[in-house]
């Protein structure tokens, strides 16, 4: 069993904290991980990605080969499409529907969402809206992780453990907010993950 995940977003959107939570959950389950991060110049508002590989077996490459990713988890809709060559034929796109527009030539959002919807296996989720609804607007990242959790070969309980470990220092309220966000994302996915 393995899950190869491309994490995508814009510098500053915090994809590294999603990666840290997945990494913690995978370690809890004694799975091997490799996670290639982006540091440096591109973190300044540019496109960023992280390759996250989880497996029962030893993992050779830090980078996912083209056509091998099981999941693209993107906190920004256009960024999910930038890494499509990594996705395998049955892979899932889980993308936030709220665009992050910091460039003058951002394409028509309808066209972007249309492209994602064309894809057989996709979840488009307004994570920002859901995070606000549950009273935890800062947890939209974890809503995204919750939405992606059914497609990652790690038991859901391990994600809960991961959140407790990562956010524990910030107090019970932050932990509970993030757990609520994780559940909200997951239940959205379960309702919407019917294959086209």
């Amino acid at each position: 069993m393995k899950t190869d995940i491309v994490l995508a977003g814009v510098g500053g959107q915090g994809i590294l904290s999603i990666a840290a939570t997945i990494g913690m959950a995978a370690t809890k389950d004694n799975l091997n991980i490799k996670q290639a991060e982006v540091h440096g110049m591109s973190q300044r508002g540019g496109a960023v990605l992280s390759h996250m590989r989880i497996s029962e077996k030893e993992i050779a490459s830090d980078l996912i080969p083209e056509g091998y990713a099981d999941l693209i988890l993107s906190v920004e809709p256009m960024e999910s499409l930038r890494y499509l060559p990594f996705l395998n034929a049955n892979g899932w796109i889980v993308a936030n529907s709220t665009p992050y527009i910091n460039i003058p030539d951002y394409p028509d959002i309808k066209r972007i969402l249309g492209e994602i919807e064309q894809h057989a296996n996709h979840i488009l989720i307004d994570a920002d809206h859901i995070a606000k609804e549950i009273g935890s607007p800062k947890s939209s990242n974890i809503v995204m992780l919750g939405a992606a959790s059914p497609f990652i070969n790690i038991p859901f309980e391990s994600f809960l453990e991961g959140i407790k470990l990562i956010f524990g220092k910030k107090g019970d309220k932050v932990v509970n907010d993030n757990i609520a966000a994780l559940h909200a994302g997951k239940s959205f996915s379960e309702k919407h993950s019917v294959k086209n």
Partner: protein
Amino acid sequence: MQKLPLLGAEAIAQGAIDGGMSGIYAYPGTPSTEITEYVQINKTAKERKIHSRWSTNEKTAMEAALGMSYAGKRAMVCMKHVGLNVAADAFMNSAITGVNGGLLVTVADDPSMHSSQNEQDSRYYGKFAMIPTLEPSNQQEAYEMAYHGFELSEKYQTPVLIRITTRLAHSRAAVGRHDVKNENKLVLPQDPKQFILLPSIARGRYKNLLGNQANFLLSSEESVYNQYFEGKDKSMGIIACGISYNYLKENFRDEDIAYPVLKIGQYPIPKSKIEKIANECNKLLILEEGYPLIEEMIKGYLANGIKVNGRLDGTLPRDGELNPTIVAKSLGLSGTKTFDIPDFLANRPPMLCQGCGHADTYNALNIALNNYGKGRVFSDIGCYTLGALPPFETIDSCVDMGASITMAKGAADAGLIPAVAFIGDSTFTHSGITGLIDAVKEKSHVTIIIADNFTTAMTGGQESSATGKIEDICQGIGVEPEHIRIFVPLKKNMDEMVRIFKEEMAYEGVSVVIPRRECIQTLAKRKKEAKKKILN
């Protein structure tokens, strides 16, 4: 001991701490920064008071590490690849002096130039200096090479180069640890003249280095990092260096690799193993992350030996980093790509943060430059290099640390008057001061903008050696006090900023203008930490 999930850079730091290091010296630079940052917050390092404060540049770092080695203790210096150019004088000569305490020079290369001006391959520096070079393929090896590297260095009394690349430096995996070793005791070199490179002594030291080459080769032949894997299919032999070995393995996953494979992690390259693979195979494929160092050596200028495929004949791209997909193609394996990138996507290049002081400064400078025309702003290495991109398009050069001031001076000498230099506070103390001395000495008509945000921002906000000292440094060098001007780069101060720029550009001598406002990233971090303190 429990395994730790570490970046390659962090694994090197942990290996060095566990290996008995007494000090680490560095100037921040992607992708090497995390090595020193890890030591700065590590518990054992704190308890042992391992030196970890930032140096002013890579040369001062290299020399301080050599000084610690002179005193018998184990030291590491680390930098990005282009930093080794700055430290090269000290580095090359450290190979001649040799070491007393173990000395590891860790250099992080950046193929594909994710955050750099070039993609030079530091293994050439190892060969140039004729010292052993280690190149880990994964995080565990990165740990081992730092941990055991000190012994290698002390055994042969030589500095040892550890070369990593961006992908390994910034990729995380679980790393197992060894017992923590004691630090060395303070002890002077046995030979009191070892470090005196007077010609008469240096000649002897150089002969000593040449004599050591056979030992370095022997060590490489016996190295656990240079492994030969037998293969049945002798139609091709594969030599894979560093991280490229992982990309090779990835392409075979659960199967054994049919071809003989020589994995290389220690240099000079192991001659007998190279001979073996060349003798038993019909041709060679060489996988190297970086320049074709081994490929050139084996192929030779006349290329009249065994057939060699690699970066030179187009089997692999000549530039850029490798990845599993590129390596698959070089093996003749078919691609597995299913989907393409839609053609309507827009690029999203990095940009200055919302509210950054550099943005206000560039807006003002663009207005002030209207009288003179474009093509006269020489910039430097830092966040402000993004001033080359829209909407600013203010700067006309970015070459190396400190080049803004000296290039402006040279252009002014040629008659491009006024010439403007744009440099950050940390880059100024790194390599700008000497250039300013040249300009002052000749009263060059240059306007030097030292954008002071109190930090080394691009690499994540490390301490800047310039903080609180810039005016004193400039005055001490001889810049006239009335031509050292300071303002706060904010939109509301636009008129003042433009006026100061105009006045100083009109002055026929050296002016220094200091836009001064804290980096908004470090400001946010500071506020957050202050809030946390109050809550606690």
